[in-house]
């Protein structure tokens, strides 16, 4: 019996009140405390990632399992049941990493209600760790819902001018989606011969007639989170209004819940129905990719542009995951997992940058940002690098991820080769943005401060792993292989 995953959940949850009181007593110490605590979680997550990499669990099995009875009543049996595999461990790691970076970035960008802010960050982190490690559907649902509460306050309290509207829209959209998902879980549970909420029990054992409705219900829950066009409308509002460190968590971590849900639950529990409608999911993913890219071209607000980039990139996850169910090419699911990892870092860095740029230059409007190259050289250099990462240029790992997904797509349906256009459009709008904001002549004589060296250095934490990972991609891809094989086996044999 291991307790590492419980540590991942409960260090942040129990740390939340401590962070509140520490920051309340002394702002500086509170931030140091929060950084220390989140680093501790990061080290634990790194240990899990390493553990899963060094001995990947065989198909359909999990490492670091923990199980204890929680609720037992009539035929309702719920266990506190955790485990990690090649799908969850990269997400655990990247979530912990982005939390550290978000806290680091918050020290300059957040200056109101700080005690509550840091406490909520830890509540968020603990709940996210719970989502990615739960092997019981009800436990999963509980953590899933807990994530909403801190995010509601982040957007509502620390957000921009339309924060009130955005926060309510966010919580109502996502809560409605997830309650429908819960109904799907109950449906499966009651339909099974031996009712169980445990993911390992259900995976590959749900009768096909029982798969269609829950697939639809879970689709609604996850499509809102991913988000998939047309369920995406909360996202640009939420992102534009959220403070930048929170946008990092929103794009880097929260959206991954959708991708994780599609892989673990939609495909993992309802594989036969998924395989039947795989073309539909691929089409939805493809549409999201194009829609996100096309909408991003039109945005004037830098942050909104990045938000639409997220929709575009998360479309790859769905597209790749379901491509495997059509062609059997494992590249699709592996690429989807890799894409989630790469997207978290690339888009995380861009959101954080947009926060700095807004903070220093006073605007995020791309046409108004002129001559960043001369006025804020460090910021501009990082912006160019982060854009390259988001475009999927080598040597950033996002290149490899998108390549794998597109290859799997083509092996499924050759017509999906058009998806190659998505990175082209993405490169187009990023380069256009760089031309307008970075390479143009500076205007006016307004004094603009560049970001400090310590902040600039923090971006290395986002971008260096992306470069390292293109060489060391096996860290993510090796443990992802049994996951992909398992999903393929239960879906199409």
């Amino acid at each position, binding site marked *: 019996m291991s307790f590492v995953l419980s540590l991942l959940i409960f260090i942040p949850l129990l740390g939340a009140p401590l962070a509140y009181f520490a920051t309340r007593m002394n702002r500086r110490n509170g931030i140091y405390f929060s950084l220390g605590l989140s680093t501790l979680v990061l080290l634990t997550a790194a240990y899990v990632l390493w553990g899963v990499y060094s001995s990947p669990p065989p198909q359909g099995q999990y490492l670091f399992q923990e199980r204890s009875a*929680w*609720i*037992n*009543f*009539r*035929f*309702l049996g719920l266990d506190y049941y955790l485990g990690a595999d090649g799908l969850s461990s990269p997400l655990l790691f990247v979530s912990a990493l982005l939390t550290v970076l978000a806290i680091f970035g918050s020290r300059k960008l957040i200056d109101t209600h700080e005690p509550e802010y840091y406490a909520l960050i830890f509540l968020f982190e603990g709940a996210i760790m719970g989502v990615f490690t739960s092997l019981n559907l*009800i436990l999963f*649902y*509980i953590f899933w*819902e*807990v994530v*909403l*509460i801190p995010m*509601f*306050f982040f957007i*509502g*309290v620390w957000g921009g001018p339309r*924060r*009130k509207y955005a*926060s*309510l829209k966010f*919580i*109502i959209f996502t*809560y*409605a989606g997830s*309650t*429908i998902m*819960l*109904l799907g879980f*109950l*449906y499966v*549970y*009651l339909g099974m011969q031996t009712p169980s909420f445990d993911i390992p029990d259900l995976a590959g054992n749900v009768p096909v007639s029982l798969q269609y409705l829950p697939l639809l219900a879970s689709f609604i829950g996850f499509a809102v989170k991913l988000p998939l066009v047309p369920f995406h409308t909360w996202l640009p509002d939420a992102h534009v209004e959220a403070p930048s460190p929170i946008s990092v968590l929103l794009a880097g971590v929260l959206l991954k819940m959708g991708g994780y849900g599609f892989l673990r639950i939609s495909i993992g529990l309802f594989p036969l129905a998924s395989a039947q409608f795989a073309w539909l999911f691929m089409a939805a993913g493809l549409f999201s990719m194009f829609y996100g890219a096309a909408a991003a071209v039109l945005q004037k607000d830098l942050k909104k542009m990045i938000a639409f980039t997220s929709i575009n990139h998360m479309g790859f996850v769905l597209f790749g995951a379901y491509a495997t169910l059509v062609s059997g090419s494992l590249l699709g699911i592996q690429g989807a997992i890799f894409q989630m990892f790469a997207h978290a870092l690339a888009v995380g860095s861009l959101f954080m940058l947009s926060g700095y740029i807004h903070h220093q230059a006073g605007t995020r409007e791309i046409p108004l940002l002129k001559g960043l190259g001369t006025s804020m050289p460090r910021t501009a250099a990082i912006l160019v690098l982060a854009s390259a990462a988001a475009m999927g240029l080598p040597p950033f790992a996002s290149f490899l991820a998108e390549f794998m997904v597109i290859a799997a797509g083509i092996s499924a349906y050759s017509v999906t080769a058009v998806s190659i256009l998505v990175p082209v459009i993405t490169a187009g709008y990023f380069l256009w943005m760089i031309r307008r904001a970075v390479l143009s002549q500076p205007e006016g004589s307004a004094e603009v401060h560049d970001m400090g060296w310590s902040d600039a250095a923090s971006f290395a934490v986002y971008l260096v792993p992306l470069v390292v990972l293109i060489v060391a991609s096996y860290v993510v891809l090796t443990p992802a292989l049994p996951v992909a094989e398992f999903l393929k086996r239960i879906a199409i044999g």
Partner: protein
Amino acid sequence: MIDFLTLAIGTLAGCSLLLPLLQLVKGRDWNLSGYILAAVLASAMVMVAVFTLSPSDLPWFGSLLRGDALGGVFALVTLGVTLMVTLASLETQKGEGNPVYYSLLSFTALGMLLLSYSQDLLMLFVAWELMSLPTYVLAGFDKKLRSNEAAVKYAVIGAMSSAIILYAISLAYGLTGSTQISAVVQGFSRLLAAQSDATALASVAILLFVAGFGFKMSIVPFHMWIPDAYEGAPTTVSTLLAAATKKAGFIAGIRVLLAITTAYVVTQNPAFTMANVFAVLALVTMTVGNVSALTQKSMTRLLAYSSIAQAGYILIGFVAFSADPQSASASIGMTGSVFHVINHALMKGAAFLAAGLVIMQLRRADLGAFDGLGRRMPITAFTLTVALLALAGVPPLSGFWSKLLLFLSVSNAQFGWLALAAILNSAFSLGYYAWIIKRMYIDEADAPGRVKEPLWFVVVFAVAVGLIIGIGLFPQQAINLSSAAAAGILG
């Protein structure tokens, strides 16, 4: 040897009768009577709890009362809410504290205690009146026009519902020759089995019971008085009405309605399925409650409508039970109903008291009073947030588990639509709950500055929040308790 339940009844009765005598003592601090009542209620709760752990016969009451776990749970819930209300009243009645006020509270508690254990329709009716009559006075206790209007409306509707119940009882007695609930059930079964002409009258009796109890349970379409009464009455009294006397309506409903329902299921009377009646009532009640709550401008009215919606959820267990009393779904559904009664008492009690404190301290009841409350009254705002999220059924708070059991009990082919409607209602309700939370933490207050939060309120809030979160994290014990209580009706 006298048993603990009789002792608890005697203590409460003595307290009710003796408290007004304190009025005769001149120049005393009248809050004393409040402290006395709080102590009496707390000890009565202990006695009831001890009794519930090891039930025994009640020789003093013959066949009028029976000490079972179902009665124990309802007695504890209603006494607990009365205790919360008494403690809060120590602050709201400060200075003008009145022994009569506490005596009336005590009478209500006694009525609810007797009602919880009633096995006989006449006993039930007496307890019902003992509970209701003091609340008519309490609702008008503020001596303001608004409060008096609420009291009169409440009293008229209350008298009407009593009359309906009495009429139903007389029909039942006429048909079966007994007022003992178990004998009435047997009599009904015989009537139905014999296909006699009297079955139509029996159905009328049942529907009259539904209407009579429905007024207290706040079931649509018998709910019209609720928002006005809750808004006009002093908020502590509204808390009592929403969180305690309403539960008494449910225990009466369970003891009488569901017992008689079994007669219908056993004889498989095709013309009249109570499950369908309950299902429609549940659907209409929760939907009307939630939709109306969304448009309210005053907090007490909003909570009143939310309370109506919650009654709809509790009814879901009735549906599962009356569809097939022997099934596992019935057991899960009734457990969910009892569990939700416990949770609702906690959540709604905390929410009403928090709202009451805000109204008392800021002297306004519109939703604007809640703007920026997170800074002005942090403990109250936090309590209200937890209570509202629990009411919406957000995990891991206590309300989630009871709703889960209720939804599970009807997730089948026959009533799956009800489960879907209930879950959508639940999602919809977060819209107005989140709206209040948004006001408290996101909107700015028009008059900043801390507002005092009196000690007794803070104590009550701490206990309620602790229980809501505690039951949410470790629901097993509460589920066991509810299940033991539900076993009483499942037979």
